[in-house]
């Protein structure tokens, strides 16, 4: 597939608490950065897709707050509720349908304004699970145990993901938690929910990302070389945690296979040069790598220790610092896509991988990776 491309990206700094900024302020900043990046004005934008979540934003119809700031006035506009990668997917279909030549996609969230555990508790079934007090951290801790048990991944290997990603974030001026830490420090950090230490978990964050997708016949007006969309797919697994093999991500495997098929990629582990994955927790980066076929089953921890996923490795993963270094929910996946775009353009500075031409980005919806969206992007058409 090479009928559409990403021609502009913009994101706010990811911060613990943007006390100055409402949702519209963040969106305005990211949208203008994306327009500047594309060398476009709002008049070049044919339609808008905003992405937000009513629970995280504390209001019904959360998209209403950002309608003016996203430039949606007098344009066709829609709103996806879920990760920003899903918003981008809908934005892509609105181009491929021939209805619009360009789509502006935004995704925002302010974790600082609410109590995260109450928001994610509301994602559990109200009849059977909510009263037990489940939240995202406790559910993912169970998944971490299931994955570690099956794959024989060690706590040290999990900790090493944290060391790598926080270290990578030192090259990313927009990251919230750039840190030089050791495996020992991760393992010595507070145990939040066994086996997840504090430094195995991503922080609560505020941030917004905007992206401009253009049809093939419109990429020529952009300021920078296009980053082509070669494949995109999403898939949902069962809802109840007990209905799934929690140690595996079957939906991610299916979505990744479809996206790679669309892109003509037969061996992702060698044909993908850079990856930005949804590392809300350390174990997830390793588990997602295996599920996507970016490495063999049960091998992610070993390859990590061998340096394969470092910035100077053969497959840099989360060179931006990943979600462990800043996790504005909803925006998170769209930021992964934007970071791949920066890599493929050679704009990643100290985090730049060596001459990547193919990159993959991933977004997640729901509990323990129930639903995934995978994007394969390329500098070459």
């Amino acid at each position, binding site marked *: *597939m090479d*009928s559409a491309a990403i021609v502009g990206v913009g994101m706010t700094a990811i911060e613990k608490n943007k006390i100055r900024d409402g949702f*519209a302020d963040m969106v305005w900043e990211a949208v203008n950065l994306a327009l500047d990046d594309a060398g476009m004005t709002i008049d070049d934008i044919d339609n808008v897709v905003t992405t937000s*979540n*009513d*629970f995280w934003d*504390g*209001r*019904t*119809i959360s*998209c*209403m*707050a950002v*309608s*003016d700031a996203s430039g*949606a*006035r*007098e344009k*066709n*506009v*829609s*709103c*996806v*509720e*879920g990760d920003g990668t*899903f918003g981008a*997917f*809908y934005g*892509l*279909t*609105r*181009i*491929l*349908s*021939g*209805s619009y030549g360009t789509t502006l996609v935004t995704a925002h969230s302010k974790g600082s304004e609410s109590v995260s555990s109450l*928001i*994610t508790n*509301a*994602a559990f*079934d*109200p*009849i059977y699970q909510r009263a037990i007090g489940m939240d995202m951290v406790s559910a993912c801790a169970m998944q971490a145990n299931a994955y570690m048990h099956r794959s024989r991944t060690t706590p040290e290997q999990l900790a090493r993901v944290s060391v790598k990603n926080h270290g990578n974030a030192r090259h990313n001026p927009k990251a919230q938690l750039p840190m030089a830490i050791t495996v020992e420090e991760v393992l010595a950090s507070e145990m939040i929910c066994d086996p997840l230490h504090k430094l195995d978990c991503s922080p609560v964050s505020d941030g917004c990302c905007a992206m401009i997708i253009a049809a093939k016949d419109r990429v020529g007006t952009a300021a920078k070389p296009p980053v082509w969309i070669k494949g995109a*797919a*999403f*898939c*949902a*697994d*069962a*809802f109840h945690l007990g209905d799934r093999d929690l140690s595996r991500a*079957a*939906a991610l495997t*299916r*979505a990744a296979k479809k996206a790679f098929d669309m892109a003509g990629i037969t061996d992702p582990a060698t044909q993908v040069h850079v990856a930005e994955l949804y590392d809300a927790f350390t174990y997830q980066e390793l588990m997602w790598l295996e599920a996507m076929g970016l490495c063999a089953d049960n091998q992610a921890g070993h390859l990590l220790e061998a340096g394969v996923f470092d910035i100077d490795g053969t497959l840099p993963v989360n060179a931006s610092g990943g979600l462990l270094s800043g996790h504005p929910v909803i925006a998170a996946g769209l930021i992964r896509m934007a970071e791949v775009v920066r890599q493929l353009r050679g704009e990643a500075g100290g985090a730049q991988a060596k001459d990547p031409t193919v990159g993959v980005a991933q977004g997640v*919806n*729901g*509990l323990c990776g*129930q*639903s995934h969206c995978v994007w394969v992007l390329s500098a070459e058409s």
Partner: protein
Amino acid sequence: MGKQRVAIVGTGQTFHKSHRPDVNGQELINEAVGRALVDADLTIRDIDAIVIGNMDHFEGINYVDCWSVDGSGGFMKPVIKLTTGGTTGSTLAIGGYHMVASGLFDRVLVIGWEKNSESDTTGAITTAFDPVWDRLVFAGAISGLAAEAQAYMARYSATDRDGARVSVRDRKHACNNPYTQLRKEVTVDEVLASPMLADPIHLLDVCPRSDGACAVIMAGEHIAEKITATPDWIWATANRHTYTYLGDANFGRLDSLAAASREIYAKAGIREPAKEIGVIELYQPYSFAGIMWIEDLGLTGYGQGAEFVWSGATDMDGEIPINPSGGVIACNPIGATGLIRCAEAALQIMGKAEGHQVPDVDLALSTGFGGCFWSDILLHGRRKPDF
């Protein structure tokens, strides 16, 4: 792969009721999905992707797309959630259209649903509005609509009898639709004698709250005609979601509907909508909208909506019947409501509307209303569009 025309090939609805304690949300969704699959003679295996939506705070469930897979049939399929408040159902229909039109999917299942019985509807709607500026005085949808009606009446000297006439029409039409909730005829005097909720809106001027779900199956052009001999072709979609704060609205006019409809008419080459369109399923949550908004749709001039309605032009046997299904005044499961309008327009095109069928419909319009005076529109046709 590549862009393709899109048609609706099957629809399904629950029997909408004020309260469905016999089913949970997934089960309610599944009733509509099952009926849509039967209508199209497909199985869930044939479905490539699912577009689903509701308004989160009515049921208090986060990530509904994920939670609902047992009911929707989304297990190991692409599932995406769209939500835009009252316009959610029509937004979903527009979403399904683009998903199929993109060529990435050939058969997409679109689902809108709500169990309004599970929370206080007015309280939940109030949280749609800005917590700092709007929530102090705002009192759910009816308060904003009442302000709109007051402004219109002052500007065009309309009366509450005019509004009541619309309610009489829709409630009469509803008697012919077995799926809708309120099926009882009323008179103008009965509407005016019902309790005043928010001046000038009486109880019988407004929609009820409902539990219900609607599912629509959309297919690409090369498959649609194999699934059904009478596909409902989607000719065009348009929307406007303009205002950020309630106080920005041009009260008494629905500018968003005027702009979106003009975009639709331009795309389809429609010059005289009242003559060229055969039937309209208007997302009309209260009676006065049935006068004001048909003016914004260009069916008649500004200030002439009441006369148009009193003439009988919008009745079942009129020039352009509006809401043969009984419309929103007869049932309003909010996240489904806009999709029900779309499904009902499809039934009219496909000739499947049975007791509320308008004869020989070539073009139909379905709309969505919500948010902060927002509008969505779909244009449906019996003939495959040649553009």
